[in-house]
């Protein structure tokens, strides 16, 4: 369901200057602004600040030691692998789904659109659980996998699958409304001019959706790298092997190694900030290109 919120590029122009003079009296404006700022300060700024403060509590040396720890490095690598597979897979899916839904008319289209949203409605923990039920030892393919000495659950493939499930709708949810609003006239024009299907797609469609696509990718990536609940269920928590960054943070934190936990967490927080900045930039670009 994050879709509805994450999905702001297509529908919602980013706020520019406040429209028109408002009629609220000065004291109302002042009070409301103060309340809003205080709430944002307590609920959003403080947690972010706490991450970096705690990470640097014992100085820069301890910080870098924690980040350079082999287990931390291994967790970073695993996170990159999981996102590196899940994000491109969901990009291909998102483009295919939005092409089918936006460019063609077929029965069951709205059902399909709803089904694409489904993973947003599922608790992360359950997202992990269902893969245990399919691939775990007790699961459908458990016996077969064990016979062939293949491991999905408590191993990297399980982590990749759970991550893919969790981030499944992001790109599609971004592209479907965008492609629908753009219509198909440019594609038709390209076809009448003799362009092939792929030429039309690469030369006309892709340039038109590139900002929406990028927007979907960064949101998808942020979630893929940060996913905790689903991955936690399928990972098995083997240090240096099946721990992603968020799982590594958990282990360090539960071992009361607060500085190291927050040091690794700070990398994820930096990713979050980077995501927000890029997102704001794309919204700004998008608004500019519309004018």
């Amino acid at each position, binding site marked *: 369901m994050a879709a509805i*919120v994450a999905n702001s590029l297509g529908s919602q122009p980013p706020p520019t*200057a*406040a429209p028109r003079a408002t009629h609220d009296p000065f004291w109302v404006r002042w009070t409301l602004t103060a309340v809003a700022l205080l709430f944002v300060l307590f609920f959003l700024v403080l947690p972010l600040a706490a991450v970096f403060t705690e990470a640097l509590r014992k100085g820069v040396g301890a910080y870098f030691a924690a980040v350079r720890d082999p287990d931390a490095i291994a967790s970073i690598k695993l996170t990159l692998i999981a996102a590196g597979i899940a994000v491109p897979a969901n990009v291909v899916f998102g483009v295919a*789904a939005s092409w089918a839904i936006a460019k063609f008319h077929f029965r069951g289209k709205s059902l399909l659109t709803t089904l694409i949203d489904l993973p947003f409605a599922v608790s992360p923990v359950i997202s992990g659980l269902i893969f245990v039920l399919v691939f775990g030892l007790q699961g459908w393919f458990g016996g077969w996998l064990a016979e062939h000495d293949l491991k999905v659950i408590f191993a990297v493939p399980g982590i990749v699958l759970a991550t893919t499930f969790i981030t499944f709708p992001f790109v599609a949810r971004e592209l479907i409304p965008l492609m629908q609003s753009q219509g198909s006239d440019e594609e038709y024009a390209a076809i009448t001019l003799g362009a092939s299907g792929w030429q039309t797609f690469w030369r006309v469609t892709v340039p038109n959706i590139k900002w929406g696509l990028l927007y979907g990718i960064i949101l998808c990536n942020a979630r893929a790298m940060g996913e905790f609940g689903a991955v936690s269920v399928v990972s098995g928590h083997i240090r240096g092997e099946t721990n992603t960054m968020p799982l590594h943070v958990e282990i360090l934190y539960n071992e009361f190694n607060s500085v190291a936990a927050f040091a690794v*967490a700070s990398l994820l927080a930096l990713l979050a900030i980077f995501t927000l900045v890029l997102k704001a930039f794309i919204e700004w670009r998008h608004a500019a290109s519309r004018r």
Partner: protein
Amino acid sequence: MNPAVTFPQPSRRVLPGFGLSLGFTLTYLSIIVLIPLAAAFLKTAGMSWGEFVAAVASPRVLASYRLSFLASMAAGLVDVFFGLIVAWVLVRYSFPGRRIIDALVDLPFALPTAVAGIALTTIYAKHGWVGRWLEPHGIKVAFTEIGVFVALTFIGLPFVVRTLQPVLMELEPEIEEAAASLGASRWKTLTRVILPELTPALLTGFALAFARALGEYGSVVFISGNMPMRTEIVPLLIITKLEQYDYRGATAIAVVMLVASFLMLLLINLLQKWSRRYHRV
């Protein structure tokens, strides 16, 4: 006349790639989403009714439903209240740093939940930045139900703000001016004209925040303390059962949650249809 308006869409597949794109979409959707989800339902189908009820209605499970439901409810309500103020301020007023605040609203999306969890725990713990001011007054946040509520409020905020913002932006100032010109006071304009327009969006925002809170795990486990019967949320209980290799018990609870989530999804879809009822004829 514009064919895009007059007719739904050209039915002939003049554009290529229909079979390929739809085929891939359905295959991928089935493998990643539908088949694994079906596994959960099929697993419980193998249980007898008695087993199922025992799994999903034991006192400990009921206590976790209660906590998850009430805390999500409270968090959703608080998010609606403050989210409305934040959205209003962001859309209507201009002040230095507005754009930064606007970008920050999405932090709960972008920040991994585990990071949010340990950060909130640290802040609200006994010696934390906020905890140390509350502790002397006898208010304990970390490792209590209030902690669960705080984490869920954090997680839900962007849903409300981002649902309200576009609606607020689309509100025509003329409507307010019309109300004012008809003699309505600012307060009356707000309660009689603006709030009714916002109601569907407020409800949608609440439903989204509530649904997300029900399933939330990462940001809650650290701050809740995870005491059975007291601060154990439903997703945590599922994990606990899994760790005890009670797959059936875990799946049964998961199915209850899935049904609840799907109902919420349905409700949200209906709400969004309702909120668009005045648009498009």
